[in-house]
């Protein structure tokens, strides 16, 4: 595979450290399990005549999860194995964003224009602006791909996909 996206930068500066991200993630996991513990506690975590109440099983799973996250937090805050290990370099983050931001935009566009038009825009746009591939090649590739998808899902397999004004014009 040729990755002609951006030439790799040998040095680069870290955009975030492994330890920071790990602490944030573990804190989020801890908060997530605390909220779920509370919600399950409301559903009843004790036993009734027929067995455990609905909240019993998830409550204890959330408790275990919270315990593991707390252990990890204490370990990372007080005894980090390698406090300077980078999580992601700046130029790496830039490339990740180059694919993530268009993907994020792709979802509302799908809602508005349907998935086939949205994928045509995503593929052609990505190839032209991120991949620096010749526009005619990019547009042709995107068109062929979207058309194949349409033929496979809409016509051959009858799988329902989000559609927009263009498909309605064509009578689908």
């Amino acid at each position, binding site marked *: 595979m040729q990755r002609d996206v951006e030439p790799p930068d040998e040095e680069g500066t870290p955009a975030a450290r492994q330890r920071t991200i790990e602490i944030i993630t573990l804190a989020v996991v801890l908060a997530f399990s605390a909220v779920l513990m509370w919600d399950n506690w409301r559903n009843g975590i004790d036993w009734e005549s027929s067995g*455990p109440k609905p909240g019993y099983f*998830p409550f204890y799973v959330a408790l275990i999860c919270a315990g593991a996250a707390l252990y990890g937090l204490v370990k990372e805050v007080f005894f980090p194995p390698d406090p300077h290990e980078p999580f992601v370099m700046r130029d790496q983050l830039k490339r990740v964003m180059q694919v993530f931001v268009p993907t994020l935009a792709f979802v509302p566009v*799908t809602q508005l224009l349907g*998935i086939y038009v949205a*994928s045509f825009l995503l593929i052609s746009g990505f*190839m032209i602006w991120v991949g620096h591939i010749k526009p005619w090649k990019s547009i042709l590739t995107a068109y062929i791909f979207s058309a194949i998808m349409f033929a496979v899902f809409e016509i051959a397999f009858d799988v329902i*996909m*989000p559609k927009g004004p263009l498909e309605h014009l064509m009578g689908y």
Partner: protein
Amino acid sequence: MESLGLLLLGFKVLMTWKTLSLMMVGLTLGIFVGVLPGLGGPNGVAILLPLTFTMDPTSAIVMLSCIYWGALFGGAITSILFNIPGEAWSVATTFDGYPMAQQGKAAEALTAAFTSSFIGSLVAVLLITFLAPRIATFALKFGPPEFFAVYLLTFCSFVGLGKEEKHKTIISMAVGLLLAAIGMDTVSGQLRMTFGSQELMRGVNFLVAVIGLFGISEILLTMEESLSLKGHAAKISLKVVFQVWGSLPKYWATLVRSSVIGCWLGITPGGAIAASFMGYNLAKRFSKDRESFGKGRIEGVFAPETAAHASGTAALLPMLALGIPGSGTAAILLGGLMVWGLNPGPLLFVEHKDFVWGLIASMYLGNVVGLVMVLSTVPFFAAVLRVPFAAIAPMIVVSCAIGAFAIQNAMFDIWLMLGFGIVGYVFKKIRIPLAPLTLALVLGSRAEDAFRLSMIGAAGDLTVFWSNTLVGTITTLAILLLFWGPIGRMFGYAGRVFSDPTANPKT
């Protein structure tokens, strides 16, 4: 032998033009998926699963399992020609495969990889043919406590035997179990953890999570690395194929050893990755000429590939016989079974004979056809790798979105998939394993049901998990596995003390 008769029945199910052509399509798609670095076995199967919703279960599983075989074969092409493993389990193949390609022996390396893949799978399929029906018959006697004990064993072995930090494995598994419990409680009908959201009432769909966790996150990771690389061209001639096959008997010990390791690790949830490394390391350790490993030795290709494929195939054994997947991809296939309205587990062997034996027969046929296909189409698939990643990446994103939407026709699921993509990316980078999450997500509600049914049956008495020899043994084994690390150290320590009375206990 009863198994042989049933296997013949399976081949009969398979021998229609429709099934055979689906097999070819599945294999081609699978090799594709295996070759592309942004995709792999689990995501490929997850993304392509919606295609099968309108098929009958037997055609669907044949196509999906062929995608799986294809992905297993395809991973080797990139490792050897481009030094990028398409799959985590082909990392060990690059150690000797790429040096061989550099020395102009790419064709030999590829033939060796494909052939040993084939041998590994074949051994595992033979094991499945003769062992799975027996285990299933045995498991028919299981009640809820036994099933819960088996689930517990699966979860505990992940924590105890996994290479990652224990608390991270536990977090991953617990998050999976919690996500599985979102939505309607199957026993009481009460809503749990939905926080009034209509969208969450449906629950978190397993496949949506998998597509995000593996598919989207893999794209983000691949973009991050952005390597520019040069590949080696390869064309396989019949002469080379026969040369390599002729040398096979010389390496019988390596092949047997790797097959056994692979089958063993495939059945115990640990996965193909560990198997391929272990196969490689053992081949190196047993070799008389250790120095030549890593410099392009054909044995270094045989060993990891045989083990990886044996374990990838053997992972389907517990899925078929007990309804417990031995690997991530097996977990997704299991999710597929449920979509088609089949209840995975021992009853499958009784109620859906043609389905089970059709699947097993397709493992034999799929591997034979796959071997011929990869040997003849290598130049074509190597050319696929020269397609710029900037074209492949958005196409994979679109395929992921289509897959996620098709499962429940919900726009919300595409957003959910994106969310799981970020989670998958962060988890992978901070080394929280994703396999336990996947497994817990697919098994979660069944494990909880088994637990609650046992509790109802036993009137809340936890000793029901030790109420007879069978369930007691499984539960005890599960707890032993959970504390495998500390127990192992204890034995190691005791062993040192007893074997060497002069040893200082403090060291």
